[in-house]
């Protein structure tokens, strides 16, 4: 299988760095923008474009990655059990990706939520 150099990987990861505006807390793993931001949404954190992820950096053991900015006080907008986090571009109505939580968490509207930083990477081969 061919290997890929950093420039190729970074052009993909730059979308997360520059275009992702929100992280959404979801009741299940979303497969579309509408599911992430409405159907299964339980909360969100608006970072603004360029604020949700850092710049691409080296990934171990190979490839490149970006790291999310930790959520300090996201808004809970519904009652339910959170199971996944989605990253979206609300300016252009696009789902960029999602990750399943390590454990579910019951949430209540009006409260806030937090999330540590996590990495999203692409291997070089």
């Amino acid at each position: 299988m061919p290997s890929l150099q950093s420039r190729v990987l970074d052009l993909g990861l730059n979308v997360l760095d520059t275009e992702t505006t929100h992280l959404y807390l979801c009741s299940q793993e979303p497969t579309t923008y509408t599911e992430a931001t409405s159907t299964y949404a339980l909360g969100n954190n608006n970072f603004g474009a360029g604020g949700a992820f850092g710049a691409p950096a080296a990934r171990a053991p190979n490839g490149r990655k970006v790291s999310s900015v930790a959520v300090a006080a996201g808004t809970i907008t519904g009652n339910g059990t959170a199971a996944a986090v989605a990253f979206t571009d609300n300016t252009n109505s696009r789902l960029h990706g999602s990750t399943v939580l390590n454990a579910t968490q019951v949430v209540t509207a009006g409260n806030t939520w937090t999330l540590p930083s996590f990495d999203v990477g692409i291997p070089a081969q």
Partner: protein
Amino acid sequence: MLEVTRKGDMIVLGDDAVRIEEGHVLKTATATKELLDNSATAPHYQIGRLDALGNTITEGQEFTYVDYGGTDGEAPAEGTREFKVYKRRELTPEEQSETKGTRTYVFDLAGARKGEEAAIDLGQRIAAGGK
């Protein structure tokens, strides 16, 4: 017939009454070593971890996964996609109260089709009050 427009990757019918988006298919199956292998499903579907609905995956029991396909092996499985149709529903006053006023409507999944044209047809029927 409602007007069909596009916004990003989304197809919108009328004044955002119905949305259509292409996404991976959600599937339910028995959790086996073969299906949980990274050649068949995404690496995060493993025994003891959460499935797509937030339930813990137990070998021999049903679990739900997003069919992204496989990542490893000589011939990883291909993922499957479909066009999903969502209908906008205004929240009741009680539901709005539960959200502390942060939301006034939600898009409910109303159906799915393999092709875009079939999904638009379904969306038009749903917007007209049919199924």
